[in-house]
Every structure is written in structure tokens, then in C-alpha cells.
């Protein structure tokens, strides 16, 4: 009796196994296509990890280039500032000398007037004085030179003011550098997920502190300053509640 029960159980199990084999046969093409897919995807994944590694290795070079650009522009700006400072100094010295000449001419005119009134009427002397007075008109030219010097000095000063662009662009470049750093961190993390081996050239570290303004812009319209002025002028009448609201 027991043997017949066991045999029945065995036949049932064999039936189940038969069904399973039947299903397995149906699964074979699916498994085959999965294997084919894996065969295709493995080189593709290798390509991806290789691309990540290549991109990552290029990042330090890119940041290095940005640093070089920043350093070069700072150096060039300093040189321009030095030249403009020297120019301004020369202009100031020249203007000072010119003022001395103008002052001396004024004194000469005063002396001439005194001579004119002291010397008795003589046609030859009068003619000489007249010729001298004509030469005095050069004073107008001296004043024009003085005005031109002042204009050149103002222009030189304006060049100096325009060099603020160096600080603004260096902040923009720092922002780009930070962005590149973020991309590198992502690449490293992605690579670590795909591959057990860690990427090399990971010397670029992101700092928590941002010593740049990513929105720095060289705008000379004055609109932003006007906005700042209006906020500041209204600040006294702005309650702490209103300020807090901006930060909530």
C-alpha cells in the first residue's frame, strides 16, 4: 500500500517536472535573447566606463587651463594698471608744469602792463609791445593743452574703472571651475557604481565654501545699483517682519 502511494507521489512529481521542462523549453528563446543582449551590452558598458575615465582625466587639464586664463588676465590687468598709473603721474606732472607756465605768463603780462604805463610814448616801443601782446594769445593754446591733459587723465581713470571686468570674469571662471568639479564628482560616483576600480586623477576636490558669485555680470546700466539704492532707502521703513518673510 505504502509503495503504491509513494509511486503515485513520484508520478505526480514527474508530471510537475514535465510541465516545468515544458515551460523551460518555452523560456529558452527568451533566455537566449537575454544572453545575446548581455553579450552586446558588456562592450557597450566597457565603452561607457572608458569614456567616463577619459572624460574624468581631461577635467584637471580643463581646470588648469581656466586657472591659467585667470592668472594671465590678472597679470595683464596689473600691467595695464601700472601703465595707467604711470600715465596719470606723467599727466599730473605735465599739468603742474603747464600751470606754472600759465602762472608765469600771467605775471609777465602784469609786468608788461606796468612797463607800458611807465615808459613814455614811443612808437617803436608801442609796436614792440603790440607784437609781444600778439604772442600772449598763445596762452589760450596753453589752456587748451591743459583741458586736453585733464581729459586724457579722466580717460585713463575710466580705463582703470573698466578693469573691474577682470574681477567679474574671474568670478565667472571660478563658477565654471566649480561646475566642472561637480561634473567630475558625478563621473567618479557613476564610475564607482559601474566599476569596482576607482578613477585616477581625482585631485580636483570641491570645496564647501564658494568664494565667487556665479551670477557676477559686467553690467554698466546702473539699473541694479538703482534697485539696491531703493532697497536701502526703503530699509529704514522696512520692518523686521518683512525682512524675515524674504528668508522664510
Amino acid at each position, binding site marked *: 500500500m505504502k509503495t503504491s502511494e509513494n509511486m503515485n507521489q513520484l508520478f505526480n512529481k514527474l508530471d510537475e517536472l514535465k510541465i516545468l521542462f515544458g515551460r523551460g523549453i518555452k523560456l529558452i528563446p527568451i533566455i537566449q535573447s537575454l544572453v545575446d543582449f548581455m553579450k552586446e551590452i558588456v562592450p557597450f558598458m566597457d565603452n561607457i566606463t572608458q569614456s567616463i575615465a577619459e572624460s574624468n582625466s581631461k577635467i584637471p587639464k580643463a581646470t588648469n587651463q581656466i586657472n591659467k586664463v585667470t592668472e594671465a588676465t590678472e597679470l595683464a590687468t596689473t600691467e595695464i594698471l601700472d601703465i595707467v598709473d604711470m600715465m596719470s603721474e606723467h599727466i599730473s606732472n605735465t599739468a603742474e608744469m603747464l600751470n606754472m607756465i600759465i602762472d608765469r605768463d600771467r605775471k609777465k603780462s602784469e609786468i608788461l602792463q606796468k612797463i607800458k604805463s611807465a615808459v613814455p610814448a614811443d612808437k617803436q616801443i608801442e609796436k614792440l609791445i603790440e607784437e609781444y601782446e600778439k604772442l600772449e594769445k598763445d596762452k589760450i593754446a596753453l589752456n587748451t593743452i591743459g583741458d586736453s591733459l585733464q581729459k586724457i587723465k579722466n580717460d585713463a581713470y575710466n580705463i582703470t*574703472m573698466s578693469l*573691474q571686468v577682470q574681477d567679474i570674469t574671474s568670478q565667472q571662471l571660478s563658477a565654471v571651475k566649480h561646475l566642472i568639479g561637480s561634473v567630475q564628482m558625478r563621473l567618479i560616483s557613476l564610475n564607482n557604481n559601474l566599476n569596482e576600480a576607482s578613477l585616477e586623477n581625482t585631485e580636483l576636490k570641491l570645496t564647501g565654501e564658494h568664494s565667487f558669485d556665479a*551670477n557676477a555680470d559686467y553690467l554698466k546700466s546702473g539699473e541694479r545699483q538703482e534697485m*539696491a539704492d531703493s532697497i536701502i532707502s526703503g*530699509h529704514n521703513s522696512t520692518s523686521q517682519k518683512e525682512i524675515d518673510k*524674504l*528668508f522664510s
Partner: protein
Amino acid sequence: MLKFLVVDDSVTMRRIVLNSLRNLGYNEFVEANDGREAIEKLSGDSQINFIITDWNMPVVSGLELVKAIRGSEKLSKLPILMVTTRGIKEDIMEALQAKVNNYIIKPFTPAVLKEKIEQILATN
């Protein structure tokens, strides 16, 4: 007699601010590269009576410097003019909340610098 402390990590900007101050007739200056250096200069020079500072600087930022000065019993009354590229409303409000006396957005003009210094001096 005004003695300025000009704080900016950009050598170019410090020179531009100093040139502008000279053009306005001021001749007493001290320079600092960042907020920490500024604090050191302030603690070693009691003659400094006007601060012009940038915001974005390494080590100690301009905003942290302002907060440190306002939190100091000895220095809290010093006038502070912030000169920065940060030009959005929230930044200006944050600087005001930290108690800067006035705010200039780069690039600035000499006229704006003169106006702000005079405004601060008039109210102090």
C-alpha cells in the same frame, strides 16, 4: 581724518578702489585680502574708521566680516560699505540684515562710490 580698510581678494579691485579713493582726496588706507586678514588689521590698528569690503572672499567672507564687526563691542559702530558683484534683492537684504551701512554693485562708477561714502558719513 578718514582711514579706510579696503578688503577684497582681487588685487585689481583693491587697486581700483584705492585709486578712486585717492581721486576723492582720501590718502589713508590699509588693505586686506580677506575677512580674516581684515579682522587682524582691525585689531592692530585703531585708526581705521571706515571699511570697504567685498562679499565673496576665501577664508572669511565679507558678510561674515560684517557680522563679526557688528558683534564686536569695540568695533560695532564702524561704518561699512559693501562693494560686490552680488546684485539680487535677497543678497542686498541679507547684507542689510547683517547691518552694512551701504551697498555698491560692481562694476561701480567713481560717482557712486563718492555718493555712498558721503551718505554714510552724513548719517554717522
